């Protein structure tokens, strides 16, 4: 068939991960962003600034990250889906505000473009070492969502999904990207019109109280834990959003019964939700298994493909939804793999330790973790999987 007879190709996109994260945000409905510049996340914010205005939204440059996180809590309280982007040091400053968003059930999204840490670390190079703070940084029992983009194109879908989940579940979503995704540019096939394909998930949006209910109680327990949110302007819906523990109406309370009820509400609305199949990307079949998260998906998928091509059947799993961990689905995907290697770009095997703490890994699983700034390469992953496996056999 001559080339002219082929259907005209869909135009491919030239995009960076940070631009893709911004595109995911506006697709998800974000119309307010508060911003404090930081390497390597600033391009997310700079991309959004003029474009939010074209969409009827706005961006406000904050005096620091303490302000930016609390600004988006304020705008989201006003009913506007809201997001900020930062990197490790900024995330450290934001965690108290994230706890407020969890306790007050105010949806917000933080895109954390990871860089080498700790402290100022290596601002211009990549590392996956902020998983622990994303999972465990908040004080108290503060359940929230942690997601990780698996590639440049996936920044669009994962951020869009995170916005929808945060809005629907009235909670915090932290999306982990990193310098390598954020500041790299690639030619990609355009993402679908909805994250992970239309119809795959219910339409995710905030449950807003629609009319004056004389018995409106903002934090009233509901079967799925999600209670309607009255927005300023709705007569009869007045309440005070609270960071203090509170009863169903929002009045501060230190009673054990209220604490138990509200803690349960905030946890179960996340753990009881059906996240569908997008919690991970799974490729290939085999007795060998590479398990990873975030941007390491790229070299891991390539390593698995090369192993399969050379006659070593290898499955690869890349986690997109890290919290709440989809443990049952993960154990099913791991199956009876004989050789399991958890791959990540940090010193202390943060994901490996997390998965073990959740009893989501068989005892024979091994870790391949090393810090940045050098990117992970497929060859070292193949050596780590096969090399030691071979030793075990001898």
């Amino acid at each position: 068939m001559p080339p002219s007879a082929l259907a005209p190709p869909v135009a491919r996109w030239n995009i960076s991960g940070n631009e893709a994260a911004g595109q995911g945000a506006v697709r998800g409905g974000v119309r307010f962003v508060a911003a404090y510049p930081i390497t390597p996340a600033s391009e997310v914010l700079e991309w959004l600034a003029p474009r939010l205005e074209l969409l009827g939204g706005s961006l406000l440059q904050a005096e620091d990250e303490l302000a930016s996180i609390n600004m988006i809590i304020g705008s989201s309280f006003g009913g506007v889906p809201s997001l900020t982007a930062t990197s490790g040091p900024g995330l450290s400053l934001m965690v108290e505000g994230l706890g407020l968003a969890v306790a007050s059930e105010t949806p917000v999204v933080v895109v954390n473009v990871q860089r080498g840490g700790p402290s100022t670390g290596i601002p211009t190079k990549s590392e996956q070492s902020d998983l622990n703070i994303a999972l465990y940084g908040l004080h108290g029992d503060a359940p929230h969502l942690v997601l990780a983009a698996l590639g440049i194109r996936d920044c669009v879908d994962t951020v869009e999904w995170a916005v929808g989940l945060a809005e629907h579940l009235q909670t915090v979503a932290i999306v982990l990207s990193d310098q390598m995704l954020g500041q790299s540019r690639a030619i990609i096939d355009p993402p679908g019109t909805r994250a992970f394909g239309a119809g795959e998930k219910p339409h995710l949006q905030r449950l807003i109280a629609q009319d004056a209910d004389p018995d409106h109680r903002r934090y009233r327990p509901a079967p799925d834990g999600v209670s309607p949110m009255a927005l300023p302007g709705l007569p009869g819906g007045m309440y005070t959003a609270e960071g203090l523990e509170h009863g169903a109406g929002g009045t501060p309370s230190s009673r054990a019964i209220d604490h138990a009820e509200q803690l349960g509400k905030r946890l179960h609305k996340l753990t009881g939700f059906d996240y569908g199949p997008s919690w991970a990307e799974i490729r290939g079949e085999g007795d060998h298994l590479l398990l990873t998260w975030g941007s390491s998906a790229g070299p891991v998928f390539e390593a698995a493909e090369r192993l399969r091509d050379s006659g070593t059947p290898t499955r690869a799993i890349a986690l997109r939804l890290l919290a709440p961990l989809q443990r049952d689905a993960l154990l099913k995907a791991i199956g009876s793999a004989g050789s399991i290697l958890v791959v990540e770009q940090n010193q202390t095997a943060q994901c490996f330790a997390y998965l073990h703490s959740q009893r989501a890994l068989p005892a024979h699983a091994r870790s391949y973790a090393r810090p940045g700034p050098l990117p992970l390469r497929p060859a070292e992953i193949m050596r780590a999987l096969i090399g030691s496996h071979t030793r075990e056999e001898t």
Partner: protein
Amino acid sequence: MDTAIVTPTLRAKDYKSEVAPVWCPGCGDFAVLSAVTKALAHLKLPKERVAMISGIGCSSRLPAYVDAYGFHGIHGRALPIASGLKAARPDLTVIVAGGDGDGFSIGGNHFLHACRRNMDLTYIVMDNEVYGMTKGQASPTTQPDWAKSKLTPHGTGMRPFLPTAIALAAGASFIARGFAGDPNGLTKLLVEAIEHPGFAFLQVLSPCQTFRPEQKEWKHLVHPSDMAPTDDPVEAARFIQADDGMALGLFYVRRLPVWQPHNQPTATPADLEREFAL
């Protein structure tokens, strides 16, 4: 058919919620709460169009006591929460309330930048020169030789923070001082502050009966400002520097550009995607 909306006239007490204040008997903050409800009634503001925003501290409990939308946030962050809300919802009347520790110590950076950003917000600081909720430590406005806190047995040794001077230097467009013991004057200042287009800073001397009982004397020390409100920052600076901290009234008011979003909705997310196409 004409469907004009009739708003029933609300009285001050209609703006009070059913939540009982946690404040000590005799706390100046009761008078501030009263003045807030009187000002809202005077301005005939529908309850659902008002948002009261605060951080943490005794005075930061105020939003729950007003029958309006409210956010009781975290220590020091009332102004950012309010700024985000106002940027996203310019249609609302947003009033921020808090104390001297919340606003000038942990939240000091936000105070500076809220002044210079000049969003249309009203910021009431109930100043009692002490951290009350944590039981009596020196605050930024405490005199350097006040040695009654176990935390600073020799006093702070630091010159007090001058809220009105700093607000002026940082670019606030409305600076006034009221007194909890002068409810009528306070209500009048609050009405002016809410009506002012821009960032209105209102310091309210609000005595703490528990940890600063000597502040009972404030009622004898306060006096009306002897300067008419000025729009000249040089004149205002001279007055504020010579002020004994007890002058009451509106000191400075000036029309300055108000921060507001520049949005012009002309595109959809799909339109934005075209820029990526090869």
